[in-house]
């Protein structure tokens, strides 16, 4: 009996050793079963809830264990605590949307030091605190998509105006730069007549839009490039009785624009598919954990999303998605 036990024990040990030393199989998707921990900025946010849908889909597809946790209240210390708990728990990969880049990088560096792989998505940490950043949209992608959609809606001619958040915001200016570059390059008959700030407030956007509507009677389109400004512009156009004559489009969340899209006040809302963002994040996390995806790679095939581009250490989700009357009901965030 004793020898049998000893045999079983030895066999188990050998088996264990064999498992841990076995070389990782080459090629994607067939590595060992990983535990991937996914953290949103906050758990209740509809945006991240829909990211999780995609994450669940990918986890099922890849057969990995997915942990999902995050702060319920805005406390920067909470994200760090959860990361530290995950390190102790022995997860293989951590994927996180960083509320505060600097603060969380401390915890992420610690994770990497302990052999846990780190991927960020939605908003990045310091570059040395993670292996890859799943980038949902580049300024170029956003700028070009917005301009192309505006051109499509106006038939590539006429006057249009932009409502921004503030005229100094770095991300807004990066987008504007690409919008204007695209305009100069491809649409000579379209004319940008004004760019107005809205301070990221819906009311301010609405009053600016109202002013623009009376100042430029030939205006064909309002482009709002910060999310509160999209419904703000729509409200202004609706109240001026110009729904349909002056088109409204912009960068925003489908949820807060659904009403206006259905009333034909707003024609298009540009954003990325959050479900795909979650899906890609888990695919990338899995590939990094299995050693399939390594620094220096320039392309990555992520399941149903196909072959995607990698710029530096940014995995690009691709072109933004356009929500309109035909598809907006499929998205609940």
């Amino acid at each position: 009996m004793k020898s049998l036990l000893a045999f079983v024990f030895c066999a188990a040990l050998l088996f264990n050793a064999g498992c841990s030393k076995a070389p990782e199989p080459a090629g994607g998707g067939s590595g060992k079963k990983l535990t991937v921990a996914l953290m949103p900025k906050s758990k209740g946010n509809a945006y991240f809830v829909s990211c999780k849908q995609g994450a669940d889909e990918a986890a099922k597809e890849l057969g990995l264990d997915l942990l999902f946790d995050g702060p319920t209240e805005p406390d920067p210390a909470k994200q760090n605590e959860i990361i530290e708990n995950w390190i102790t728990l022995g997860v293989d990969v951590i994927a996180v949307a960083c509320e505060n880049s600097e603060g969380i990088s401390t915890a992420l560096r610690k994770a990497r030091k302990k052999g846990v792989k780190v991927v960020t998505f939605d908003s990045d940490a310091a570059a040395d605190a993670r292996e890859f950043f799943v980038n949902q949209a580049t300024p170029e992608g956003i700028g070009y998509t917005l301009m192309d959609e505006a051109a499509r809606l106006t038939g590539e001619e006429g006057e249009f105006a932009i409502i921004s958040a503030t005229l100094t915001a770095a991300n807004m200016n990066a987008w504007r730069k690409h919008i204007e570059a695209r305009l100069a390059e491809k649409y000579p008959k379209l004319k940008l007549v004004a760019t107005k700030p809205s301070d990221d407030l819906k009311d301010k956007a609405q009053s600016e839009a109202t002013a623009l509507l009376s100042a430029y009677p030939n205006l064909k389109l309002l482009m709002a490039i910060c999310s509160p400004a999209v419904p703000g512009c729509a409200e202004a156009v609706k109240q001026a009785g110009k729904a349909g004559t002056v088109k409204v489009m912009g960068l925003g969340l489908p949820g807060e624009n659904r009403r206006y899209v259905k009333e034909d006040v707003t024609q298009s809302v540009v954003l990325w598919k959050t479900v795909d963002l979650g899906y890609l994040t888990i695919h990338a996390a899995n590939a990094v954990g299995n050693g399939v995806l390594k620094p220096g790679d320039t392309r990555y095939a992520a399941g149903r999303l196909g072959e995607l581009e990698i710029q530096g250490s940014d995995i690009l989700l691709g072109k933004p998605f356009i929500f309109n009357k035909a598809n907006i009901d499929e998205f609940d965030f």
Partner: protein
Amino acid sequence: MSKPSFFSRTRGWWRSHEAVLLVVLLAELVFFSSAGRRFGTADNFFDIARHSTEIGLLALVMTPIILTGGIDLSVGSLLGLCAVVFGKLWRDGGCSPGIAGVLTLGLGTLAGLLNGGLITGLRLPPLIVTLGTYSLFRGLAEALTHGADTFTDFPASFLFLGQETWTGLPAQAWVLMVAAVGFWLLVHRTTFGRAFCAIGWASEGARYAGIPVRARVTLAYGLAGFVSGLAAIIYTARLGQAKADAGTGYELFAITAVVLGGTSIFGGAGSIHGTLLGVAAIGVLSNGLVHIHQPREVAGMLTGFLLLLALAVSVLPQWLSSLAIRRRAAQGSQSSPPSTP
């Protein structure tokens, strides 16, 4: 005929609230160790210690305040203010972390004395005064940073305090232990500290007994300010960043730990070791849930449940013995003469 009840006959430490809480804590430890694969590791206990230190310090200093019948709602906000001031002194003021730390502790103490002064000097209720400074301190922290400025890139020698281990334990755990021993001696072993209980029990009586009530109460709040500053420094070292929202909601965690630890919210009764057990019970619970893959919000729910359960269980013996006495009295009046236990 009637025997004295089990509860009224036995008198011992294990009937105390602290003993009940110790059992709860042990039950948590046993449960999570068996259910969570990595729960029982040294690394994990280090995590728990790291994550509990700031709340632990605030709970320790909250105990004497609640013992006097007061409360301090401003400690979390003061932690935020101190963290921001510490960051500003270091980054913009050119102070070394050591000097910045000393100045921060000074600021914390002054802020605490402001609370104490308003409460004793103007005879305002502690709840109102600290509700005011709760907003004031947080507002100052936000104003100093315009709500957006974040202080980071502290030197590794400073981050050591929050992230590394020193002689076998996380560095900040030593601070917590020293504070715990210090507060225990102060509250339970000095006449000076026993005044807190006396004040909470009967403030007028304490005054007639020669206790300088106002000075002691002011001191308790000053001490809270000092410790908030200390917690702010440790918080900053642990996260590697100081931001105006540091320590949001920590005052309520601290108060929960104190009350869970058996200190009466009306003052006059309670203990430092009870508070420590309260901190440990909450810390282990929220950590353990991660190890059995339960979502974080369950921790809040269970903490509330634990608090109510601990309170209920701790009054149970009293309730049972009073029930027994009443029944005996009722029986006695009907038939047999009262027995002598």
